């Protein structure tokens, strides 16, 4: 097993972990953490799988850089919204009742 494939596999696990976290966790900050872990997992798969034969590939690396920027933007946005919600309602969870 090459390093690329190993990290790609871990990426898969991290992705699954992150998605489960986003879906199951109530607390908004934790959800944001989960989303970041999900993103990291995806990035690992992107680079790891492409480099499974051990040759560095700049294209997925550049894509991951783009992805990281997007993830930072999304994280900041989510934090801003969460903090705003907290200011307004004193809660950091989305209530279940309006979900149905």
């Amino acid at each position: 097993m090459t390093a690329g494939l190993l990290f790609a596999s871990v990426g898969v696990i991290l992705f699954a972990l992150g998605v489960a976290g986003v879906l199951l966790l109530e607390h908004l900050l934790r959800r944001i953490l989960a989303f970041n872990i999900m993103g990291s997992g995806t990035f690992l798969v992107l680079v790891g799988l492409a480099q499974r034969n051990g040759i560095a590939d700049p294209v997925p690396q550049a894509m991951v850089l783009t992805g990281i920027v997007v993830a930072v933007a999304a994280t900041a946005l989510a934090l801003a919204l969460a903090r705003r919600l907290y200011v307004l309602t004193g809660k950091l969870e989305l209530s279940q009742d309006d979900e149905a």
Partner: protein
Amino acid sequence: MSLEFAFDLLLVLTMVWSAWRSLSATRLDRAIVMFIVFGLLMALAWARLSAPDIGLAEAAIGAGLTGALLLDAYGALQRREI
């Protein structure tokens, strides 16, 4: 099993563990600290994947910005609860 593989294996196990802890920790501050640790490990992983550019970005963002953002949010939370 080569040393490199052992290193990688240890690294990924730690990554998964820290990710898991940052999601499952009962206290939020622990979760955030664990997440920062996870970010540092990611930087190591990128180094192992010969992607120093991403390593740089991860180090700058993970250590410098996201961590600070999260901690700041956590702090705002704490202050309000007092």
